[in-house]
């Protein structure tokens, strides 16, 4: 079976007035089907650029990007992925329901099928009572849930998320993380998730990809062997071990193996 995402030797150079900017150099990354992978790193490390290469919103200067075994462009035309941005980006003049219907409407799905799918998705994100509301009437967290429902509208096998919880408060953020883990599990979609937050990356992901800037590149990949996530996961010693591993990797030290680190912690106790 082909991987959800397969990136080989991808580089991206932007030409600016003050000369070329090497946003990404020589990136190799594979994301399996149903796998949850986070991209983490400081500003300017190219994590958003990498996400846009996968979504074909940007094209690599060199290298190849395959999604479900086809070119990123073909995958975009086939609507293989759903994209959620840092801003919810809802259309304020449409109802919540009709915002969720937008991609279906653009791709010619009939009115009643559209309506049924929107209701299903709103129930999935816990907003079944808000279909008739307009986005400005909702809180930031609710707007992001609508955006996630919209990204899921066409049952994509891949979700691309660019700091979708970045503007939310900590409590809302943790609740949204829990819901996202559940939704990803229920839909079986692979997720590539860009974030600044170490605990967020560790809680959500099977693997955390650590990046560094100038030039943007992947410096480490931390496996997070934590099993099914619950709210208790956040207090699990393994969670802290993984957080430490990612933090070390971000500081440029080798992250090592989280399992080994966990054993060290347990024996010290």
């Amino acid at each position, binding site marked *: 079976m082909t991987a959800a995402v397969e990136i080989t030797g991808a580089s991206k150079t932007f030409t600016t007035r003050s000369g070329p900017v090497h946003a990404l150099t020589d990136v190799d990354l594979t994301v399996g089907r149903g796998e949850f992978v986070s991209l983490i790193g400081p500003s300017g490390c190219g994590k958003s650029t990498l996400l846009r290469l996968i979504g074909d*919103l940007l094209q690599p200067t060199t290298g190849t990007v395959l999604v479900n075994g086809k070119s990123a462009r073909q995958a*975009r*035309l086939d609507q293989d992925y759903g994209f959620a941005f840092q801003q919810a980006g809802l259309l304020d*003049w449409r109802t919540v329901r009709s915002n969720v219907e937008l*991609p279906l409407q653009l791709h010619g799905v009939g009115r009643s099928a559209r309506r049924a799918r929107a209701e299903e998705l709103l129930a999935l994100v816990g907003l079944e009572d808000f279909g008739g509301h307009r986005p400005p009437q909702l809180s930031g967290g609710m707007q992001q849930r609508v955006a996630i429902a919209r990204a899921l509208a066409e049952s994509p096998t891949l979700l691309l998320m660019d700091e979708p919880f970045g503007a939310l408060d900590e409590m809302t953020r943790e609740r949204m993380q829990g819901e996202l883990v559940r939704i990803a599990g229920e839909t079986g979609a692979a997720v590539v998730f860009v974030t600044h937050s170490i605990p967020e990356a560790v809680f959500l992901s099977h693997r955390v990809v650590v990046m560094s800037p100038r030039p943007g590149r992947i410096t480490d990949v931390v496996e997070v062997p934590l099993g099914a996530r619950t709210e208790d996961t956040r207090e699990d010693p393994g969670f802290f071990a993984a957080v430490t591993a990612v933090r070390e990797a971000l500081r440029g030290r080798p992250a090592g193996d989280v399992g080994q680190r966990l054993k060290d912690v347990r024996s010290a106790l």
Partner: protein
Amino acid sequence: MTWGRSWVRAVLPPVVFGLLFVAAWEVFVRAADIRAYVLAAPSAILRETGDRFHNIAVATGHSGLNALVGLAVGTVLGVLLAALCGRLALLGQTFAPLVAALAAVPIVCLAPILNNMYSLTSTIPRREVVAISAFVPIFINTLRGLQHLAPVHAELMASYAASGTDVLRTIRIPGALPHFFTGLRIAASLAVIASVVSEYFGGLKDGLGSRITDNVKATDYPAAWASVLGAVVLGLAFFLAALAVERLVLGRQAAGLT
């Protein structure tokens, strides 16, 4: 309930202030024994308005029709040209600065020149002045609305592999509607001003502007003021009509009906 109360709260203060202002004006004119050619008393203006109500109403109708036709023509042209300029970048780069410059031109100055292009009894030159005046804010605002596309919406539509027509239909046009209505409100007021003032420069003598100049020439100042009152009512009517259309359409849009 709350709607009724907030409506009263919105309307009452300006109405009370307006009535007090008129009362003070009346008292001032009487107490200081001001001559009518300097400042007519509100009571005298009202009396004139009552006496000449029919003539003023007919004149208001003529000026109002010129304003309405000119506004309609200017609105259609403004929207069409804005749509073209929004679609074709080169056209936008050509026309947008020209229209911005036109906005700074006192267009009623054209009235005497346009008057000479047509027969003395033609309403066309006045309607042209109105149309040009109304065209400017409609074009500028509509184009600004059509050209605005938030980066997140641009990326979202790209991720849907949506065509330019899809973006126009689902984002640019609905997003431009509030801008268009802002332009329409400005244009509606400008249309009445342009219609009345263009009559000051001769031509057909059937509207409020020509009544005002005639009354002033005949030193009948309360009558001139009465026609000014007609112009005030006309201007308010146009503004409120534009506002009502805006509320109706944007309200329907907000309710998800369009």
